[in-house]
């Protein structure tokens, strides 16, 4: 392929080869505007997050992931509904039905619960229809007899059954 010679300079745009000079006052103005918009965005995000944690059963967490939770990295949703003061996440042991002291098979609700009494605590393993398996340690002494909490209620039942 040969080199094509360009004759003349018609149609070729002329560049000034000069730096585009920004007026200092305009630059400052735009910087302030950007900073303000950024600050506003941050405030809005914080407010939305606050509202969600008040109303929703799940939350976005920045905490270190604990055992038995779905994850704790920023942006990963964790199951907040199953947690309470007496219920703490634990490591999943994949306990069998034979090893369990109490079993709840809730086909129509889409989950199974297995419980084992261990001293003053009850180890509860929950398996859900979507494939999740979560485990909890429940301090039954801290659970009210009138509780409506699924895991707490099951832990109490396990204590009564075993005791």
């Amino acid at each position, binding site marked *: 392929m040969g080199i094509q010679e360009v004759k003349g300079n018609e149609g070729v745009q002329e560049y000034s080869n000069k730096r585009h000079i920004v007026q200092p006052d305009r630059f400052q103005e735009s910087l302030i505007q950007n900073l303000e918009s950024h600050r506003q965005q941050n405030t809005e995000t914080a407010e939305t997050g606050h509202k969600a944690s008040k109303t929703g059963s799940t939350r976005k967490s920045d905490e270190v992931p604990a055992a038995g939770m779905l994850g704790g990295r920023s942006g990963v949703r964790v199951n907040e509904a199953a947690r309470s003061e007496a219920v703490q996440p634990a490591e999943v042991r994949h306990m069998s039905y034979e090893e369990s002291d109490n079993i709840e098979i809730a086909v129509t609700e889409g989950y199974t619960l297995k419980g084992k009494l261990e001293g003053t605590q009850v180890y509860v393993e929950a*398996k859900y229809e979507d*494939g999740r*398996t979560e485990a909890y340690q429940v301090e039954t002494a801290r659970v009210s007899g009138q509780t409506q909490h699924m895991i707490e209620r099951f832990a109490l039942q396990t204590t009564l059954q075993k005791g």
Partner: protein
Amino acid sequence: MEHKFEREKRWGDLAGEYQTMLYRIAFSNLKNRADAEDAVQEAFLRYMKDEKPIQNKEHERAWLIRTTVHICTDILKSGWRRKTVAYEDALTAETRSVYLPYQLKDDKTLEAVLKLPVLYRNPIYLFYYEDYSIQEIAGVLNEKEGTIKTRLRRGREEVKKILTEGRP
């Protein structure tokens, strides 16, 4: 690779280990004690005759469950079975002959599960009553995990319908 006679030597242990579970799975499909027992025996016989190597315990268990399910499907498909067996009336009484290793609080749900079409029945039964994970069920039934999840969800809806409206 395991030799044939070594497998035969393990016959007693094998039967003791899997017999009850396989019987329950066969019963959940056939809803008849005698047929379920026949299906389990047939599965063990096929296992003995099978020359393919079994890699480990998990593989062995999955193989036996899959074969039992296939035998049940064949029995259900057979013309003789369709023409001669009317199992629905006997279902309630027969359900009590499923000896689960734990006490069930709700027999009615299990009855409803046993009335489900086979497509939903096996995943639901294995997931809830035999405590298998979705991954294990997918392996046993040779399906994708997503398919099993869908069948579990749809099967659950069907169970609700049977319990509330009394129809499958």
